[in-house]
């Protein structure tokens, strides 16, 4: 029983066509479906190496925001076990039946302590990556538009009480704490948590307003791809928030930037292998600048204050 990895994020956007143009032409995702959700226009997207039906759902809404985020569990039986654990913790858990959501079967939904709606699923419609399973080329076709990351990697949400959220994700959901930032009083300002990816993070939680989405990140294979992504972003006039640079926390190489409607995206590579019994890494408040942006050593205010 356990949380495997991030599966998909569902967001709202006030301009679905503009967002679609950005996520397909600049980010280089594939639009897999167009339709409607609760009467609003919606579109589903995925990266070229993802085998799941989608990793991003966007639906029209006058206000930008996050509907929910979904993690895949390790095995089919896990949903039942998590339903009990979540109920014991005091969460209202609702079951979503097969057929109610596009691209997946049965799932459970609940509110995390910081107010975001989280979903757990095992049964995902596998539509395959673009390479196939028979003598596949190791690379996608060279004419793919945009940045074209192979897959979504992780996300970061805000919470007023980071410590409470960290305990929830560790004790109830069984994620593993890999790194934390502590203030002078020993309170957690930020935590980085991993499912079963043996990586520094599948989700991170940083102090901020409850319910907020800070960003989600796409994986790239190396630093050179991060540089090329920055070229693509700049060429297309995308607003870059930070980078290309290096994180102290996670050791990752990164760029942060905004989609046309203000949602922060990241491209990320690097990190390190994490055994389940690895001792966690702690950052102190006075070194937080380096923890965030190792070269610049700044506690960037826009980075900490702007969210969705």
């Amino acid at each position, binding site marked *: 029983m356990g949380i495997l990895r991030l599966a998909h994020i569902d967001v709202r956007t006030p301009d679905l066509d503009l967002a679609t143009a950005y996520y397909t032409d600049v980010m280089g995702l594939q639009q897999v479906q167009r339709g409607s959700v609760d009467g609003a226009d919606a579109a589903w997207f995925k990266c070229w190496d993802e085998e799941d039906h989608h990793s991003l759902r966007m639906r029209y809404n006058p206000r930008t925001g996050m509907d929910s985020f979904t993690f*895949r569990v390790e095995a089919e039986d896990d949903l039942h076990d998590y339903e009990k654990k979540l109920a014991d913790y005091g969460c209202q858990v609702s079951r979503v039946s097969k057929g109610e959501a596009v691209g997946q079967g049965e799932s459970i939904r609940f509110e995390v302590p910081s107010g975001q709606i989280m979903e757990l699923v095992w049964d995902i419609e596998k539509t395959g990556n673009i390479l196939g399973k028979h003598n596949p080329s190791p690379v996608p076709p060279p004419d793919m538009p945009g940045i074209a990351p192979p897959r979504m990697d992780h996300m970061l949400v805000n919470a007023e009480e980071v410590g409470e959220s960290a305990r929830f994700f560790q004790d109830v959901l069984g994620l593993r704490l890999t790194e934390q930032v502590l203030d002078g009083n020993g309170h957690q300002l930020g935590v980085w948590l991993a499912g079963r*990816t043996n990586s520094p993070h599948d989700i991170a939680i940083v102090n901020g307003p409850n319910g907020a989405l800070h960003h989600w990140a796409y994986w790239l294979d190396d630093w050179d791809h991060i540089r090329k992504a920055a070229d693509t972003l700049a060429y297309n006039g995308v607003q870059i928030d930070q980078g290309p640079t290096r*994180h102290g926390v996670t*050791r990752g190489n990164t760029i942060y930037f905004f989609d046309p409607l203000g949602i922060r995206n990241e491209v990320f590579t690097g990190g390190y*292998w994490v055994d389940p019994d690895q001792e966690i890494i702690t950052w*102190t408040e006075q070194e937080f600048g380096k923890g965030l942006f190792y070269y610049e050593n700044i506690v960037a205010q826009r980075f900490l204050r702007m969210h969705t």
Partner: protein
Amino acid sequence: MSDRILRLQHVEIRVPDLELCTAYYTEVLGLIETDRDVKDGVDRVFLKCWDEHEHHSVVLREAPTYGLDHMSFKLAEQGDLDYFTEKLQAASVPVKRYAARELGPGWGEAIRFESPSGHLVELVHGMERLGNMLPRTNPPPRPEGLTGIAPPRLDHVFVMAEDVEAFTAFFTDILEFRLTEQILANDGHQLAAFLERSHTPHDIAVITGPNGALHHFAFWVDEWNAIRDAADTLAYHGVTIDVAPTRHGVTRGYTTYFFDPVGNRNELFTGGYWVDPDFEPITWTEEEMGRAIFYYHRQVNEKFFTVHS
């Protein structure tokens, strides 16, 4: 439930010249010597990569021949030792159990058994932890002053077996590895198989060849540029490069192959992809085997198939 086998923990290899090999593994590859011992009258040197936390990932053992003594995989929990002992015994595989430190310094509690291909396999729990070379408070992303190539960690091992299908069945049915890719001959039998526990394309792979043979073991580097830098370091030191930097079709990895001073093949590897537990395996056909192994050149040098240790 336990995660069971997490990843490759270490390889112990035989080397006819311990000091020469120690010099190569520490100064050219850039591993760190953590210990030495004498076991049954034979000298051993213990090595680890800079980002590894445990006592060793490579053990060199003085011996008249070269090759693989054994490979060891890390278990998530102590109870996994009993779990796999029962599974192995139920399949009539003899299992030996060893207390912590019985097999050497820093060693955890372990079980050992033979695979159908005659390889000695170990599962271990509770290795001594020395830490990586960085503090746990405000760590920089990497240490300064590393020597040689200095890969952060050991990645996978590649062995040979006369009966690849029996090897695959043993590793999947009993040890619960998952098949990610395979190369099939035209008559449908498996020529090579790639198996994982870490959600990467492989922690161990096997190709048709003599039982008990080692094809290579590989260290992880973070990206393609690091493969090129490593090739510069290898060439500078006069190391025999078997395959210059290139790309695999299988695993999608970037790679360079080379030999240690006594002829054990090493690899540096990066790339690959994420693997879900219900990943549908990828199949390569015999006529595409060249592209599967070396994607750019579409052919495999004869040495790559015939030279092993």
